[in-house]
């Protein structure tokens, strides 16, 4: 029984990791209708920059602020240099461009810092509490709290502010938005910038747990995509909930389902996603778009 609850907590902890990347992916999708496969690697690059600043003696809070701003600029830069030129092209072209970003940023981190894993400075105090034999760490709770605030903020901005409305409109249909007077390009730029910063926050949250390395975010990508799909690509809160569901399902399933076991645990997020999609095709919190024929 204790094992069950321990695995539940472990699942929430892993789920928080998946949810963090999922949040960044959902943000960029909501703002630009593009799934950026390179999001994780861009986040890793920012995390490395923060780590490097700390190594050079800059206090951690300041490093996070500096790199947070820098990652916003990185997002804008990537948008203007790479995405804007192909924005009129088909989805497939953009997919390959984002894959190119994936390869590029991972190789960049590898080249600059080598393949060894590093310790990322922790933002939350270590240690935790032992509740009836189940161990809960302070960092897990901290990460969940930060993600909750982030998701709520994102959701609120998109739903309740004019800026959010403008961003959503630009993503949905750039021509019609231009007609209405929205500065589409600026909205897209903002979207990429915010997404990059969110990605950095995600990487900073999970870095201490995952150990900073050029391939840190790679195994997470599939789980993050599944989480976002599960929760609905329209909803930041959905990404968070989706991540937690995936984490818990995977943690419990890997241990208590012997025919899956820990080596086939990657099947679980897919199976869970599939089941939920078959029941509710837009994801748990997604909103279905009504298309006029």
């Amino acid at each position: 029984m204790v094992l069950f609850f321990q695995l539940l907590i472990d699942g929430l902890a892993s789920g928080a990791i998946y949810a963090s990347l999922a949040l960044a992916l959902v943000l960029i999708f909501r703002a630009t209708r593009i799934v950026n496969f390179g999001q994780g690697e861009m986040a890793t690059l920012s995390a490395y920059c923060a780590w490097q600043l700390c190594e050079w003696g800059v206090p951690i809070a300041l490093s996070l602020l500096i790199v947070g701003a820098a990652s916003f600029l990185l997002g804008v830069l990537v948008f203007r240099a790479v995405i804007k030129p192909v924005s009129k092209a088909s989805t497939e072209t953009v997919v390959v461009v984002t894959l190119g970003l994936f390869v590029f940023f991972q190789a960049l981190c590898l080249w600059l810092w080598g393949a060894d894993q590093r310790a990322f400075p922790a933002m939350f105090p270590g240690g935790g509490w032992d509740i009836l034999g189940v161990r809960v760490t302070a960092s897990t709770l901290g990460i969940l709290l930060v993600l909750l605030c982030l998701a709520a903020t994102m959701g609120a901005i998109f739903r309740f502010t004019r800026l959010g409305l403008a961003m959503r409109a630009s993503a949905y249909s750039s021509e019609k938005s231009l007609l209405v007077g929205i500065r589409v390009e600026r909205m897209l730029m903002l979207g990429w910038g915010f997404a990059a910063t969110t990605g950095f926050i995600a990487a900073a949250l999970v870095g201490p747990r995952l150990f900073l390395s050029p391939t840190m975010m790679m195994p997470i990508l599939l789980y993050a995509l599944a989480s976002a799909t599960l929760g609905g690509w329209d909803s930041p809160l959905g990404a968070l909930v989706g991540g937690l569901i995936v984490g818990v399902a995977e943690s419990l399933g890997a241990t208590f389902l012997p025919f899956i076991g820990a080596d086939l645990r990657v099947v679980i997020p897919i199976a869970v996603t599939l089941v939920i999609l078959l029941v509710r095709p837009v994801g748990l919190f997604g909103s279905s778009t009504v298309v006029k024929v």
Partner: protein
Amino acid sequence: MNGTRMFQSAPAVLVASVALCLPVLAPDFMLFEFSIAVSYGIAILGLNLLLGFSGQICLAQGALFGIGAYTTAIFNVNFGMDPIVTLPFAAIVTSLIGVLIGLPALRLQGLQLAIVTFGVASAFPQLLLKMDSITGGVTGLAIDQPMAPRWFPGSQELWLYGLSLICAAASVFMLSRLLRGDTGRLLRALRDNPLVAESLGVNLTKGRLAAFAASSALAGLGGGLFCILNGFISPQSFLPMKSIDILIGGIVGGITSMAGAFIGAVFIVFVPGWTTAINPALGGLIYGLCLIAMMMVARQGIAGLPIGRGLQALKHLFNKKGLSRVSGAVPGQLGGE
């Protein structure tokens, strides 16, 4: 009109002529690399069918490729079948599994389908490892390589290259037959406007499943060929990145072009080696930039580059006759129609 047709099929003609001249120009080990490229090309052809012609994103093509390879290997190792004879079986088995994947796809929209199929691709190597009694697990499977018959004048590599070309030609032939008829129209309707098609009475379910079946059959054929060429397969060759590579190959080559499939295959087999050769330390960086640059220059893939139109423009230079042309790709155009 005849002239326009000729120029539109420029990529296909180019690819075919290069393929035939290769044995003369290239040394044996390069023929081997090209044969591998052809096997990937057949799998990419399947992806083009699914993505380019029917508008469904399937990121499990690498796993289906692997299933074809393992089918060939298992039939050869366990039942002693000649590897070449196993190829149709590889195609059929993979096709059946592809339909299984296609079934849930009926309910899923584009992005979701992509992610679920990517999940299948991620689970595939682990499944191979788990089912090690059949698949040989981590040790992999080694097959008897079909030797060139005694009457064949060339080398073993040439024989295998010829075999690859025959498989490729068969695939292209079957695919064009498929696309020319009703099924082809069905698939194009599926991609361009499924709602209208359905309201006109088109059976989309049948179309979707047919697309999956055909696409997987091609992936399986490519995989079986891959197994024959290498003589040894292991789960390490079928990681999720392989599905991504096939996707990249398809899009870079031109997702609506049959010639593009093989151009893209050559891209993914040779370009990573070239970028590393330029600078070993920066190899990955250069490859990433290459992908991005490629897409910025050739929006519709390499086959979509206006080679045909360029040649045609050249012809106009001499004829000095201006023709009014509709610019851009005509919906439903494929290289050679």
